């Protein structure tokens, strides 16, 4: 068992008490006014996002898009799967995102011998009180970083996935709620397959988006060699928003308007994946729901309180690619999932209302 605690584990009881604040109007850490339903005004939202992204940027240079997608997933209350070769900064991205927010962060290094109780926590008999006492596991945090999730056994994986889906932990018949914001950032190494348990398709569906880091460009790599020789850049990162701010921001995202035209566009994309000749399995209804939620966050990040078809298109590759199962024909034709998503986007009409103006 290898559980590293990056930040002090908060007392679950204390966290539970703090949960009630989301419903009431109040002042968040940075002094921004949150309105009576817990939303952050769009302008302040925009500003907060800018602060987070620039903070991440100081650590991971040249990965704006990955950082933005990670933030999008956090604000859309989804979970993120980062899949790439070792050493490109997967864990660093997850850690930096967590650090910029003043919230609890746990990291779990998955290994084949990790047990479900190592993730969820365990009930221990308290001899003094003659009763069982629940010791919360590392999953009790706002951001959980699951390193190399495909190294754990299927049983442990599914314990984590249940927490992701249900936002709660059930131990010995008792359920413990996970406080929002709750986000799992899992990393996975696609090339080293020996002794791993690849995530089944059904479970990959639980992740809102999958991103790849990719290698940094030449300038960014040069800078990295220059600046990160001795000290870890992570040490300089200070939280720029509080947990209350994040809750308010999540509420703001939920309030973003989606017009019928955009819903239609989303559904049309979903249908197109199901009818695509190269795909054995298209996007599920849950996938479309997540697509829309991610698009709402992307719209808010762009400073808008309504979703454009462009927002849907912008998050489509990250949200849909890991859920699609390619046909053998696609493999022989040299197609990959992101390419197919792009081709679908190029074919589905953008039905704006103005296309049929009421004149």
């Amino acid at each position: 068992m290898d559980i590293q605690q990056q930040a002090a584990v908060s007392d679950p009881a204390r966290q539970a008490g703090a949960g009630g604040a989301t419903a009431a109007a109040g002042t968040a850490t940075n002094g921004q006014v949150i309105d009576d339903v817990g939303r952050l005004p769009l302008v302040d939202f925009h500003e907060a996002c800018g602060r987070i992204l620039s903070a991440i940027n100081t650590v991971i240079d040249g990965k704006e898009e990955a950082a933005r997608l990670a933030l999008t997933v956090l604000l859309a209350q989804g979970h993120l799967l980062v899949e790439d070769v070792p050493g490109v900064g997967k864990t660093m991205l997850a850690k930096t995102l967590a650090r910029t927010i003043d919230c609890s962060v746990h990291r779990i290094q998955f290994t084949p011998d990790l047990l479900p109780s190592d993730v969820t926590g365990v009930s221990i008999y308290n001899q003094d009180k003659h009763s069982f006492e629940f010791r919360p596991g590392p999953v009790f945090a706002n951001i959980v970083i699951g390193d190399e999730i495909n190294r754990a056994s299927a049983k442990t994986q599914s314990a984590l996935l249940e927490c992701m889906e249900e936002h709660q932990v059930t131990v010995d018949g008792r359920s413990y709620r996970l406080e929002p914001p709750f986000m799992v950032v899992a990393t996975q190494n696609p090339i080293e397959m020996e002794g791993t348990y690849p995530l089944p398709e059904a479970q990959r569906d639980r992740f809102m988006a999958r991103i790849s880091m990719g290698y940094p460009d030449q300038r960014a790599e040069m800078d990295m060699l220059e600046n990160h020789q001795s000290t870890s850049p992570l040490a300089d990162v200070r939280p720029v928003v509080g947990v209350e701010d994040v809750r308010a921001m999540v509420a703001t995202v939920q309030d973003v308007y989606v017009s019928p035209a955009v819903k239609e566009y989303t559904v049309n994309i979903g249908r197109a994946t199901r009818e695509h000749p190269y795909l054995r399995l298209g996007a599920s209804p849950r996938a479309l729901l997540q697509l829309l939620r991610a698009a709402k966050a992307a719209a808010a990040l762009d400073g808008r309180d309504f979703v454009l078809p462009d927002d849907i298109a912008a998050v489509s590759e990250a949200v849909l690619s890991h859920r699609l199962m390619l046909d053998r024909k696609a493999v022989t034709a040299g197609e990959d999932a992101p390419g197919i998503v792009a081709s679908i986007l190029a074919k589905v009409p953008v039905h704006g209302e103005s296309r049929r103006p009421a004149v």
Partner: protein
Amino acid sequence: MTATLDRGQGHGARSGTPEYLAPDNGSRRRLPTGSGPWLMSAAIAAAVVLTAANLNGVIEGWAWLGNIFFTVLCVEAGTALGRALNWPAVAATLLGLAGLIGSVTLMFFASTSFLGVIPGPGTFRALGPMVDQAQETVISQVAPVLATPGIVMVACVGIGLVALLVDTVAVPLQMPATAGGGLLAVLMVPAIIKPNSLGAVGFLAAAIGFLLILGCAQWLAGDDQAPAGTVRAGQFTRAASIGAAALAVTLLLPLAIPGFTSGAFPQGSRLNWLGAPTGLNPIVSLGDNLRRPGAFGRMTYATDSADPLYIRSVTLENLAGARWRPTDSDGVQRSGVERIGTRSTRELMERGEVTTTVISTGSFTSPWLPAPYAPTEVEGLSGNWTWDPRTLAIRGTGNTTSADQEYTVRSVEPALTREGLESAESIDAPVVDDIFTELPDSMPDIIEETTAGVLDGLTEPYEQAMAIQSYLRGPDFVYSEEAPVDGGYDQSGFDVVGAFLEEKSGYCTHYASTMAIMARTAGIPSRIAVGYAPGDETGEVVDMDGRELTEYEIDSRDAHAWPELYFENLGWVAFEPTPGRGAVPDYAQAEVAPVPDPAEEENLNPRAGPTLPLPSAGAEPEAGTGTAAESLAPRLWSAAGVAALLLALLSPMLLRTSRTRKRRTQLLAPAVPERQSALLAWEETLDVAADYGAPSAPEESARAFHQRLAASGAFEGAPAAALERLRTGYEHAAYANPQTLAQPPANSRRWEDVTAVAGRLKARSSWQQRLLGRFLPQSLFRRR
């Protein structure tokens, strides 16, 4: 995507950008309000009525103009009322249509209607006969047709619809210049049918009407054009060069394009560099005269003859060289025109009636003197004149011509009767000069074959002559001035006769020379008389020595040729083989006019076949419409066809322009919601982009389209900002929550933005693309 976020978009919805809040600029085109609709409608009504007045000459008289005036007035009153009440454009047009139906019902179907203006069931029953009547008029009559109720009703409906069209194009579509097309459509009818085309007055009337529409529209539209009084230097140059080009094309096109045989620029109406025709080749001059669009010259004659006279100027009898020519008469010409005539004519003068004719030639210029046959005394001439005893043609010597002469001719008419002619015997010995009987050595076979067929079994000269005349006046032959001029058909060549017998279509020259040659083939001496058919009675009476002479006038279109055949003891006798021209003399009419076979009647040229002598053959002043009755309908159809084709070719442009204007009007309307205006502006932007080669597919989002245009590098500065504003406005309008109070960013200059973007798109496209964008806009075919 960058981490640096643009706050402007978030703010735009709430604060608005100061530049958008510019006060309402004065460049909006005001729609007619107040007295505007009435003024505009009055201008259109005036224009249509002025144009319709040109139909005089197509329809007889002027009485019908009142009906048309009333109809147009009702139509325009309807549209003006609709607009004055601020009804939608469609309702105003429908009101105009109601005006049309009401007025026509009131005038023509009052007895079968409700309250005089609402068509009842009986009206529709009455409509059929009216339309039939109109159709019959068109088919059976020569322009100008009688103003029967049927034709007037059809004219009223047609002109009323034109008024409605002009109104619709000029006011709701706001294209007053294009509305001129409607007026042009009306003008085309008289231009094609009237032999003199429109004439300056008619054209001016229509032009004034058009200018009235333009002026009114401009005045009501306000000052969105250049400020009054400032004429940019380029404008004058441009106007002058366009005018010069139009003039050049107008002059040069008729030279280059064959096929126009009537109307304003018929074939043969070439620029005549040498001035008036000299008459050296009488037949060619004659053909030219017949095809000339307008009559020119005016010759009058006053005669005491009961019937109008053929005025003869020269005879063609010389077939040497296989073409008709006047005889070379230098050796035999005699001087002293005060006493003309051979012994036979002197005898005739003593016992026959002497006709006295006073002729004033005006500008008719010819070496030969026009005179009725057979002249015996000519007085009052100036210059040197001689006469040919064989033909009695009077010719000036030296520079003496017939121009500006006024003289008195005494002539004798041989008292010809059918009985006398029938008794004429065939000529055994040549009593006339050989020149009247000569035939070329080789003739087209068809001449002899046809003659043999026509004269089958006939031996008497008169019977033979009558058979030839009847054959040529028969239903097989069609009078036409559209004979192919370029193929030498127009010439006096001999081969033309063979061609004519095959074509069975031509004009008087062909008929006359064919009859003359067929007569010679049959052994009858013949010649062709060239001159003028009896003209129109002027209504004047000239008093001469106590006798009253009836005055007639002739113009160039009365030019005519007819054959004269020689009969023993009788002399030269004129025949009239040309259908539809002149008058057939009593003696040259068949004893009993054969009744045409009803089955064939439809094919008959209405003028063909034996006809009763017309008391005034000049009642049909224009030879060009000799077959007009038959060709009126086809011409109308072809005019309509051309108009429809033109309209079809221009319809993409018109459709596109009207779409833009509609959007503009909607967008600039004072109370238009921001949301709708943004959608309209964006839709127009996409259309313009499609027109100028940057179409946006339905799969492309507004933002992607914007980025693509921006990436092409064509957009910088103001147009780029305009495009950005349009796109942002559209995105808000199309996708933002319509329930929230936040409207799209207010943009009072949205249409200016569209114009700026359109200008940029246009500027960066090639000229082919611009041309295509104008006349075949791709946006009409854009997938939406």
